[in-house]
């Protein structure tokens, strides 16, 4: 369109978001919103000019020309010399077959199914239940200045159920969630409601731990959060490029025990799957750490060209937002230890389970995450239940503390926030034994 633009692309996402909110057995709200958003990126002589628009009308060719002119003008103040690496894989990966298309199921029926799950959480001792359902149907079209064009649709859906239990003035909650990319996941899930209710009641009698350094076992959900927070973020090419990651000079170094292999795989048919990343590049499985050795970074085309050592296809974006380097499906590969063996080997310590989220400062190399529940391990056996336990550590030393990796890898879906954008991901791990962990808790004994 204009010779001064070295490159441009446009990513247009239109679709519908559906939400159902059930509070204490009543449908509080249930509705659908519609959107059509686009982001236009144009590479001027130096850096990027960006235009984000909502709504975007793909049939209005005049508007696109106008946006490109605006982006070109905006780019004038940029001074970074942006170079894009070649993108060899541009054929969208096949979207996993959908078992039951959520968009074809009436809202009333989805509401009734969610009601069954939340009702199941109402066990004796439970004073409040809440359930939410979210569904995001998105039609994505990508077009760039090389004439490349691709489009696909995805539908992600899932639910969460929460139970609050009360006893003698104390309150605790149990929370279960599951999200899917391959179809409606609301049928036959009342067990999840029961699980949330059971956990809330059980936590009433759990005590807060006194923090300190101890041996710890992480369950697969929390082990996944550990992989995500402690390693995943710091291996993102944009942070490496800007000098904001402690992993920046670590390619080829041993940064963990030899049993640790950590992978990010956007091609895996889990919640973080993308047929094509937000720059129109097909994702690729990237082994970040292999047998304790730092191997590869996650990249966009731009960070690959600037940093090297890794794969593009990891740029992701919310509809109408700028692509940034993100994880997709991140996991610690399975080892060969059995669960019983891990608990026995721990002898005295703590088992942490379920995730209330985490955060990392990749530049400082310090991360934190919180468990939903835990059990003390005494003499190689699980004993008392504990609550409100968290774990912190330093990226460059903690991975050496993994002394056993279980054979029971499981993935857990969720959302990850970075740069004000939230994208669907999954994290996973087998059970892990850490020979020393810094555990935080608000208890006195």
């Amino acid at each position, binding site marked *: 369109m204009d010779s001064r633009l070295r490159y441009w692309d446009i990513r247009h996402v239109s679709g519908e978001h559906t939400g159902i909110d059930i509070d204490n057995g009543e449908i509080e709200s249930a509705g659908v919103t519609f959107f059509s958003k686009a982001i236009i990126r144009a590479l001027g002589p130096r*850096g*990027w000019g*960006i235009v984000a628009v909502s709504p975007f009308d793909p049939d209005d060719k005049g508007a696109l020309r106008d946006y490109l002119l605006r982006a070109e003008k905006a780019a004038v103040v*940029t001074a970074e010399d942006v170079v894009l690496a070649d993108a060899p894989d541009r054929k969208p990966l096949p979207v996993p077959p959908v078992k039951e298309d959520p968009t074809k199921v009436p809202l009333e029926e989805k509401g009734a199914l969610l009601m069954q799950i939340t009702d199941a959480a109402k066990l004796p001792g439970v004073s409040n239940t*809440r359930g939410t359902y979210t569904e995001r149907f998105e039609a994505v079209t990508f077009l760039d200045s090389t004439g490349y064009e691709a489009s696909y649709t995805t539908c992600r859906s899932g639910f969460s159920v929460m139970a*609050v239990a009360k006893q003698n003035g104390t*309150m605790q909650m149990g929370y279960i969630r599951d999200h899917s990319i391959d179809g409606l996941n609301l049928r036959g899930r009342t067990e999840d409601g029961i699980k949330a209710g059971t956990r809330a009641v059980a936590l009433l009698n759990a005590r807060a731990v006194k923090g300190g350094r101890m041996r710890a076992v992480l369950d697969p959900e929390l082990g996944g959060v550990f992989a995500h927070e402690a390693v995943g973020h710091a291996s993102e090419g944009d942070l490496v490029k800007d000098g904001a990651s402690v992993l920046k000079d670590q390619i080829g170094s041993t940064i963990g025990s030899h049993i640790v292999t950590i992978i990010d795989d956007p091609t895996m048919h889990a919640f973080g799957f993308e047929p094509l990343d937000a720059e129109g590049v097909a994702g690729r499985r990237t082994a970040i750490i292999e047998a304790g050795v730092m191997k590869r970074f996650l990249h966009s085309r731009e960070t690959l060209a600037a940093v090297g050592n890794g794969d593009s296809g990891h740029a992701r974006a919310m509809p*109408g937002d700028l692509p940034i380097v993100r994880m997709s499906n991140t996991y610690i590969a399975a080892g060969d230890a059995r669960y019983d063996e891990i608990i026995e080997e721990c002898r005295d310590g703590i088992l942490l389970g379920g995730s209330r989220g985490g955060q*990392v400062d990749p530049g400082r190399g310090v991360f934190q995450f919180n468990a939903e529940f835990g059990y003390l391990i005494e003499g190689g056996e699980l004993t008392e239940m504990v609550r409100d336990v968290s774990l912190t550590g330093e990226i460059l030393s903690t991975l050496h503390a993994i002394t056993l990796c279980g054979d029971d890898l499981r993935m857990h879906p969720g959302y990850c926030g970075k740069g004000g954008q939230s994208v669907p991901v999954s994290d996973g791990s087998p059970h892990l034994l850490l020979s020393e962990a810094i555990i935080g808790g608000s208890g006195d004994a």
Partner: protein
Amino acid sequence: MHKEVISDIIETGLKYADEVEVALLTSESVSIEMKRSVPAYAGESFGTALIIRVIDSGRIGSSGTSTIADWRVCLDSAVSSAHLAEPVPWGGLPDPVSLKGGSLSYDSAVKTDPDIAHTFCNRLLEGASVYPEAEVVGGGAGLSLGSVILANSCGICYEEDHSSVSASLETIAGQSTGFEYDRSYSLDIDPFEIGRRAAELAQTSQHGVPIETGIYDLLLSPMAFAGLCASLLSSALNGRSVHMGRSFLAEKLGEVIGAEHLSVIDDPFYPGGLGSGRFDAEGVPTRENILIEDGVLKSFIYDLKTAYRFGKESTGNAQRGGLGGGVTIGMHNMVFCGETMQEPGEGRCISINDVIGAHTANPLTGDFSVEVQNAFIMEDGVVQEPVRKAMIAGNIFDMFGQMTGMGRTPRRVGSVIVPAVRIDGMRLVG
């Protein structure tokens, strides 16, 4: 033109429902984002959103769309949504009243001008250069303008404009990081000071010393305090959580829940507050709500639906952003006041600028354990050595009782307004 569409929507909507409410939001912005110290992205954005709510026999339905021309689809969707919702004893949308004054969080001097953003970026870098050991990792500046038209079938048609100016900078010195930002509705932010502070934090946090696990007195910066406490306290004061049995404070109205000098007010008229506004998302005129006064829990906050349902009055705290275009309950400007100390860092304490993992606190009970960020040992208000690593553990509601006093100068952290807070006797894991 927008107002015509809005009248059409209300007129058509009344064929299907008792009441109709339409919100039309428009926004535009410019921003420049630096990678290291170089402008790498410069952009602008334009957005429109239409949100329709209908109420029929106490059933509330909602929908939203970014394409105004598609309002009929949106209206149909809102009507179907209402069919599904459980009815509440609804007492009607508000009637129009005369609102005094103009938009509260709007400054007509704010323009979406990239040159201003560019100047701010340069000032950020100049500020950072005061501490040469700190390298700039990234940052940027942005300006945005927005407007809301809210109309309903009772005759309300209110308009309000918003403006926003923000700048932030991220720095690193060795493995020590620093971050600072500010956001205002006017051009009164000081990008030089933001840059200087971000670099100071990174440079002075280097060579941290280990500390012993034990009980310490803490001085939490406004950022650390707001990060830990604000969203949790706000949801515990949310009328819906209270009446549904999901709030720690549910049965504590009239009880002492904090230090006797602590007061917390939701003030929609706070000068310079980012959450200031004359009416809420349902068109209810806003008002000052005293939530905690002299340590005693005074009131909760409500939207119309929750108020009608539980025999209360809306406190003007409906906010947009619920699932499927619905409203939720939220604060405007949450202002914390307490006894101001001559020197909040008196004696020996640990000064904490920020925390990692604030959002992982138990949303129900307030129990938390988080990692400190840019923490320093402090003697009589003077910063000594940086702390390498430590976790604070405790309970947010207990912490309100352990507040010894506050600094003199409140700071705006998003829509929270709070000075530094001194909290004695907290546990740190070193």
